[in-house]
Every structure is written in structure tokens, then in C-alpha cells.
């Protein structure tokens, strides 16, 4: 036993084991999130949601996963097969990789990089590649349109996403996410979402667009282009795309919490749970994800030109102005 624990001290093994654990968590999280989504939608729609499989329908995701696992995997006749099959993987890996740098608790982080924020930005932008691959590989007008929309949207919203990070980086003076959390302190009014409120809102909106959730789900646009880039996927490949979507949604929530809402820090000092502070992290992330779902079932979808208008004409100027305000305030105080 001791030898096993000692092995964990060795850097590459620790990295691998902890990343494995995180990957396991992510895959399960996707399943749990589908369930949560159906339940939340049920309560918003004044109905029950799944409640027949297992106690209160809790085994529903298991049934879904097993079913998708045994489903035939169709690839369209004239598709570009390797691109088609590679796309879900290209979508899933970036979503899972970002979890490497997210600090769950003071010491619970797979890799405490000193350029973690840069890493996050770099990895999330790879996600657009998977979308384009899926759209190109499927060889269908609908998926091509979805992929083009997805690429345009994800690349455009990278800009406000990065700009809104800069305020936090300026205040902290570090690119490490652990440093960011520690700099925020253990009281709710010292967290960055108050002084950086416009940046927080921008990051939230840009994050919503980055993970393609309603009202920014144009690449999927179920009532317009019938699932967009994922229209031709079936069985496990489709499940992998879904897992990637939910994982990236969770990771955006986690990074939002880390950057603006104090990470694992308790809202008030006396609520400090010591080694169990990851509970705070979990609660905050779940709350942010709940708001994502709340929005999903409440508002219609934007149109492409309106989406671009919002990104370039509203979000980017707001973040630029607030960067100047932050810089000025740092000079004065």
C-alpha cells in the first residue's frame, strides 16, 4: 500500500493517475449532466422528467450510455471517413485537457502550471477544429453550414473571452489559476466578480457562446439546421460529441468559478471547511451550470449576424473600456 502511495510521489505517474481520475470524473460528469438537464427541464416545464428507470429515474443516463454503446455506428457513404471519425475525438480531448489546470482545492490540481490561463485559452480554441472536422467530414449541406457557423462563432468569441481574462490577470499579476484563487481571499466581497463585474458578465456570455449553449446554439440549431455538424453522427460517436459538449460546459463553469467567484474559497471565513473546501468549488460550479440550463430553457436563439454584432460591437468594447478602468484604478490605488 505504502509503495503504491510512494509511487504517486513520482511526477509522471502522479500526473497520469490524477489525469486518469479527472478523465473518469469528466466522463461521468457528462452522464450526470444529461440527467440534470432533463430533470431541470422537467421542473421548468412543469413535468416530471425521467422517473421510471431506477430510483427516481437516476439510472436513466446509464441506460442511455449502454444503448448508445450498442448502437450501430453509421458513417455516410461519401463521407471523409477518417476526418468524420476523428472529429469527436478532436472535440473531446481539448475539453478534457483543460481540467488539467483547474484547481479543485488548495493542493488538488493535476498540474499547477504557472501559465495555466494561457494553457486554458490555447486549448479551448482547439475545440473549433473538431467542429469544422465534423462538418467537413459528414459531407452534408446542413453539417457544413453548422460547422461554418461554429467556427465563426467560436473564433469570434475567443476575443472577448481572452480580453475579459486580462483584468483578473492584471489584478493578480500571475497567470497561475492557483494564484488567482488565493489572491481572491476568503470573503465574498473580495472576489473578483465585484470589481470586475463587466468582465465577469462578458466572460459568462462569451463562455456560453464558446460552449454553444442556448441562446448561442447556432451551430446545432435544432429547428433550423437539425443538429448542424452532428447531424450525421450516431451511436458512440454522437455520445462522444455530447460528452465533449457537457465537459466543456462544466470546464467553462469551473474556470468562471476559479477566476471570478473565488474557486475553493468559502464565502465567509468561518465557513472554511479545511480539507473539504472542494465542496465550495463544487457548489459554485453546479450553480453556474444550473444558470446555463436555466437560460437554455428560457430564451430563443440568436441569429448569426446578431451574434456577431453582440460579440464585436458590445462585448469587445466593454472589455476594452474596463481594462482601461482597471489599469487606471491600479495606478491610483
Amino acid at each position, binding site marked *: 500500500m505504502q509503495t503504491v502511495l510512494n509511487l504517486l510521489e513520482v511526477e509522471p505517474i502522479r500526473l497520469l493517475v490524477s489525469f486518469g481520475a479527472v478523465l473518469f470524473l469528466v466522463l461521468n460528469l457528462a452522464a450526470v449532466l444529461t440527467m440534470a438537464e432533463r430533470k431541470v427541464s422537467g421542473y421548468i416545464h412543469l413535468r416530471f422528467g425521467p422517473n421510471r428507470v431506477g430510483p427516481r429515474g437516476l439510472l436513466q443516463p446509464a441506460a442511455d450510455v449502454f444503448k448508445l454503446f450498442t448502437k450501430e455506428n453509421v458513417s455516410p457513404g461519401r463521407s471523409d471517413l477518417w476526418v468524420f471519425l476523428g472529429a469527436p475525438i478532436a472535440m473531446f480531448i481539448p475539453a478534457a485537457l483543460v481540467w488539467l489546470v483547474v484547481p479543485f482545492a488548495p493542493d488538488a490540481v493535476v498540474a499547477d502550471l504557472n501559465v495555466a490561463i494561457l494553457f486554458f485559452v490555447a486549448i479551448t480554441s482547439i475545440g473549433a477544429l473538431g467542429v469544422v472536422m465534423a462538418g467537413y467530414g459528414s459531407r452534408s449541406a446542413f453539417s457544413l*453550414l453548422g460547422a461554418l457557423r461554429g467556427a465563426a462563432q467560436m473564433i469570434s468569441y475567443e476575443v472577448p473571452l481572452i480580453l475579459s481574462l486580462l483584468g483578473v490577470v492584471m489584478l493578480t499579476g500571475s497567470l497561475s489559476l492557483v494564484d488567482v484563487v488565493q489572491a481572491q481571499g476568503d470573503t465574498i466581497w473580495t472576489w473578483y466578480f465585484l470589481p470586475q463585474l463587466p468582465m465577469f458578465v462578458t466572460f459568462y456570455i462569451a463562455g456560453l457562446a464558446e460552449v454553444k449553449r442556448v441562446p448561442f446554439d447556432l451551430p446545432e440549431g435544432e429547428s433550423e439546421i437539425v443538429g448542424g455538424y452532428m447531424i450525421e453522427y450516431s451511436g458512440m460517436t454522437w455520445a462522444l460529441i455530447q460528452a465533449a459538449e457537457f465537459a466543456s460546459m462544466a470546464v467553462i463553469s469551473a474556470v468562471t468559478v476559479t477566476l471570478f467567484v473565488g474557486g475553493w474559497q468559502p464565502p465567509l471565513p468561518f465557513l472554511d471547511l479545511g480539507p473539504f473546501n472542494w465542496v465550495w468549488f463544487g457548489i459554485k460550479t453546479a450553480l453556474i451550470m444550473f444558470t446555463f440550463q436555466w437560460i437554455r430553457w428560457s430564451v430563443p436563439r440568436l441569429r448569426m449576424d446578431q451574434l456577431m454584432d453582440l460579440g464585436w460591437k458590445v462585448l469587445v468594447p466593454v472589455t476594452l473600456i474596463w481594462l482601461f478602468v482597471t489599469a487606471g484604478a491600479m495606478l491610483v490605488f
Partner: protein
Amino acid sequence: MLGEERRAEHEGALTEPASGRLVSPDIRDEFGLETIDMNMGPQHPAMHGLLRLILELDGETVVRCDPVMGYLHRSKEKISENRMYPAVIPITDRIDYMHNIAMEYGYCLAVEELLDVEIPPRADAIRALMNEFGRIMSHIPSIGFLLLELGAFTPILYAFRERERIQNIFEAVTGARMMFHYIRIGGLKADLPEGMPETMWSYIEGLEKRLQPDFVDLIEGNEIFISRTRGIGKITQEKAVEMGLTGVPLRCTGVEFDVRKHYPYGWYENLDFDVITDEAGDVEASYRVRMGEVRQSIRMIKQILENLPEGEVLGDLGRRLRPNEGDGIARVESARGEYAVHVVSDGSDTPYRVHYRTPCTVNMQLLQEIVPGHYLPDIMPIMGLIDPVSGAWDK
């Protein structure tokens, strides 16, 4: 010639971009840009049934839109010719299956015109009453579908809650949830059950209260809803009249035309109601008109329930109907517009010819006129503006 000028004008309007920015053909050729052909439907979540649109896309902008129908052509006119007069009513039920009571109503009025019979006043009043319930049952889901196609999922569920409640009323009165076969030639199948007027009254009062929080508050102030619908599918009055539009698409341009008001039939002469119009002529205006019409229907139902005449509901016509030779034409205002039935009799048991003028078929001509120039996602609100029903446009 006069007609040719008109036609030229009409073609000019076709190439005029509406909201999108069309790349001019010259530039397209110069840079070797290509348009995509896209086939939307017949199985598509936003096509209100089985409609196929052949689209030519320039990026996201639609250059050409060609609707293809007939995927639900069920030969209703031919079947109607081979049935006895009363046996046609179930066929008419299935034309516009969202507001099917109006479909029976129109057919029965046409045959009654042929037979020249008097309808008992109570039957007339109950026909109008159920017709207005049917209109609410159709309009509220229409609003829900519009939002569903824009991407908001929740309003349709709230809409179907109301529809379910009205279906319960219909089930109590007629015995069926959807295909009622309630209006008969010369009257009604049965009188209202005991205590039904009170139930209806309480339901209508509840609906009036729920309309604001469940629908108006949820939809009207929403920024995204406004930005997706305002100015989309803009129709001028002249265009609307030229295209022969009726119903909500016509009224939302400001032309005041309602068959119930201007060609009154049945009990509607005795009712006091407004024709709701709106000046804007876009999708948002159509939403407002539909909401206003629901309120007017509530008003009418209250009026009917207040003075419901007493008496029989079915005159004695005998089992065998053999109208004299001639034409019977009747028109009613269905939830989608003017629905007219033309029955030609040759003096036998079966109609010689039955022609259904369904509003959806005519209103859908609008698609190939106004969709070009819009963005692809704008097709969905435009479908919500016209709100066709598959069974009605295909007959």
C-alpha cells in the same frame, strides 16, 4: 397589357432583398463564389408537417425558395365525391387538424345552403361557441410553435397545457379529443352536457388570468424574441391583398378583413367583437394579432354563454339527404384564414364535386415571394407567421 405590367412589378419585388445582404451575381461570378442548394424537409422539425423547401443559399442568405408540397395529399376531394353527404364530415375534420371544428362548420354550412334548411338557434350558438374554443386551441399552440422554432422550448409546453384543458372540454361535449364530428348537417350531434356552461365559464376566466403570466410576460418583453421577429417577413398591404392572403397574415398588415365580421354566418351576427389588426406586417405583429384574437375569442365565448338560447339542437332532416342540383358555397373564418367549401350537387346521394379552399395553400404562396433575401434562420419565424397546417395545404 395591364396584366403584364402587374406581373413585371411582381417580379421586381421578388429580387428585392429583405433583410439579408445579397451578393450581386456579378461579384459572385468574379470571385468564383458558389451558391449551395439545400433541401429542407419533408422531415424537418420546423416545417409544420410535410413541406419541402428547395433553397439556394448564398452563405446564410436565401437566394431562391421553392416550396414543394403534396407529401400529405390524401385525396380528400376525391373521397368526398364518393361518400354520402353526412359521411363527408369526418373527412373535413382531418383537413386542418389544429382547428378542425371550423372545417366541419364550413362544409355543413355549404350543404345547408344547398338544402335550404333552418338551423335551430341553440345549435347555431353552440356551433359558434365550440368554434371559438377551437380557435383558442389552435392559436395558443401556434404561438408556442413560433417560439419553439426560434429555439425557446418552454412556451410550447405551456401552450399544450392549455390545449389539453380545452381538449378535455371538447371531449366532454363531443366525445373526441381531436376529430370531433360534432357539427352535423342541420344542427349538432348532441346538446351540451349538464353543467357544461359553468365549466366553460370557469375555464375561460382561468385562461384570461393565465394568459398574462404564462404567455405575454414570458414572450413579449424578450429582447431576443424582438430582435428575431421585428421586421422579419415584412409584407405590405398591397402585396398581401395581391397574394390573396387571409387570416392573420393579412390582418397583421392592417387590412381589416374577417369573414366573421364581413361575411357573417351563423351566430356571429349577434356577437360583438373587434377585428384585430396591426400595422407592422411582420412576425411580431402576427404574434400580437394572434394574442389579440385569443382575447376576442374569450370575449365571444362569454357573450354566447351569457345568452345561450334554449331549444332543440338538431332539426329533422331525415336520414337520406338529396339536395337539389346547384352550388353551395360557404366560407368561415378558420384560425388560418378564409376557409371556403364549394359543394356541387347533381341531385344524388353523394356530392358531385367538393372543393375545399384552404387558407394554408394560398397563404403559403407567400414563401417563394418573401423568403428570398432573408437569412436561413428567418424561414422559421416566417413559417410561424403563416402558420400553415400540413393537412390543410395538401388536402
